[in-house]
């Protein structure tokens, strides 16, 4: 059995779902959670329900907003004061930026963007995609402890009936140390939608969208479904959508429950970025488009007529 620390971030005060996915999968190990700053009692209860034994609230000056150095300094001090075999976190914007620096403070290894793992005998062995998921490989960590692991959101899934932990919350002093790279300002995104990498449903437009304005019909469908809108590289390179919306090997790799590809041909680099979606729907005029080889439900037809009809059908189904 291993002693594990799971680093969690909060989004609008809520624990990120990937933390709960990790905790559920760690059943049988001793798992604590660390958060920078305060966390509400109901969120501690949620962590306990999924198996957290202790919830450490690391508090100190200059930790009110994220900085790679401040977070790494405060967390490494805290980890050194305990004896953890493993430190886990989500492969989120913060996790991807922070965990390599934090691991290197221990000269330790980080297995990043892991999509599944086992802890047989308290030893981590994981699976992670290479080449945006065109192939998979086994990943193991060697060298000094603790060993670090980042987990891709939505990949593990929630454990149905998790074993609860004690969920004892306590404050810990955090020292941010010297921070050289500091956030001066945050420019909010115009969209309030869930990020593509964490979205449960994604509606994506390809080159066949013809222009940026036409994405309105995808937005309408997305609003009905509570989905996030994505774009293929062809659509982004044609200027129809910003790069933040790009799905594929040079964009985001996604794994939603439902992926609806509209006018996306299915280039190999796009398929690499969305092939692990649980259910794929493709709409395309070309019956031989490669996207249909990955689609659970393919509709051969013109997206400009099919998408509005589909939006209406979703409205009916969902009673909207």
């Amino acid at each position, binding site marked *: 059995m291993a002693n594990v620390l799971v680093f969690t971030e909060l989004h609008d005060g809520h624990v990120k779902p990937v933390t709960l996915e990790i905790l559920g999968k760690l059943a049988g190990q001793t798992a604590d959670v660390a958060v920078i700053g305060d966390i509400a009692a109901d969120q501690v209860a949620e962590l306990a329900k999924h198996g957290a034994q202790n919830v450490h609230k690391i508090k100190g000056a200059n930790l009110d907003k994220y900085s*790679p150095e401040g977070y*790494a300094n405060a967390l490494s001090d805290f980890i050194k004061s305990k004896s953890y075999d493993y430190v886990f976190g989500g492969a989120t*914007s913060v996790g*991807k*930026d922070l965990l*390599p*620096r934090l*691991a*290197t403070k221990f000269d330790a*290894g*980080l*297995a*990043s963007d892991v999509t599944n793992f086992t802890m047989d005998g308290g030893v981590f062995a994981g699976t992670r995609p*290479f*080449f*945006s998921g*065109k*192939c*998979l490989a*086994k*990943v193991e*960590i060697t060298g000094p402890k603790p060993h670090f692991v980042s987990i891709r959101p939505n990949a593990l899934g929630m454990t149905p009936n998790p074993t609860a932990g004690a969920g004892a919350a306590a404050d810990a002093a955090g020292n941010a140390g010297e921070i050289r*790279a500091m*956030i001066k*300002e*945050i*420019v*909010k*995104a*115009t*969209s309030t*939608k*869930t*990020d593509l990498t964490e979205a449960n449903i994604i509606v994506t437009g390809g080159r066949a969208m013809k222009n940026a304005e036409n994405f309105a019909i995808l937005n309408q469908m997305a609003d009905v479904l509570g989905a996030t809108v994505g774009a293929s590289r062809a659509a982004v390179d044609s200027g129809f959508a910003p*790069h*933040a919306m790009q799905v594929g*090997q*040079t*964009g985001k790799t996604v794994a939603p429950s439902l992926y609806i590809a509209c006018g996306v041909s299915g280039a*190999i*680099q796009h398929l690499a970025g969305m*092939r692990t979606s649980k*259910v794929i729907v493709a709409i395309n005029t070309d*019956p031989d488009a490669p996207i*249909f*080889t990955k*689609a*659970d*439900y*393919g*509709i*051969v*037809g*013109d997206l400009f*007529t*099919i998408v509005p*009809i*589909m939006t209406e059908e979703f409205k009916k*189904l*969902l009673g909207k």
Partner: protein
Amino acid sequence: MNIFVCVKQVPDTETKITPTSDGSFIETASIKWIMNPYDEFAVEQALLIKTSNPAANVTVVRVGSVKDTEALRTAMAMGADDAALVEAGDNLDSYSIAKALKGAIEKTGKKPDIILAGKQAIDDDALQVPQILAQMLNLPSVSVIVGFELNGTTVKVKREVEGGALEVYEVNTPVVLACNKGLNTPRYASLPGIMKAKKKPMAQYSLADVGVSDADRRVKYSQFKLPPEKPAGKKFDATDAAKQKDVVAQVVGLLRTEAKVI
């Protein structure tokens, strides 16, 4: 001013990947190698800095096999001044690569002011090397940058986070920056640039030369295999306008009753 750009050579995005029969890595014999696409933004940013600071020196550094030196020659053809190559096998882990980059940078004897890299390499997609390198050199870093301004020794960068929000950082040089698409538009190498690149100096080292050994490996990759194929799905013809509504209603119904995702 000394600018370093870390580049990696990766299989072209349209490459079909085939694991080796023993699963130790992938078949590399017939692969077309390109400069990692995110690294092109790093090279371009270095050259833009050099445009406004003509005395700046741009060195490109790469750790990898020497099969061909496409990525380094491309960067020099675009305008980088010189290059350093650390010869290493494929499938090296991020910690070893970062340590080798650090060693190669130190070998030049130049003190770095700005170190640029792509935010990730599209082969292992680890997203680790720039941050590890920064920590090893005890430097600040900002990753996933889509905006860059240099005023004297202060850098103002925009980092893209979830949902497309931007964090604006101010940091003094020396600094490590990991670049994302959207930062700039990489230039093409000109023909005179390509000719000139052939004469530009390229230092070559072994891993041992830069102080890296097998003991530096922190992460082991093995059992490379293709992901499981999905069984064939259902395909519906909705090209006939009269049938469209029925077909769409049927698919939407199946998403609830069969796929259970709505």
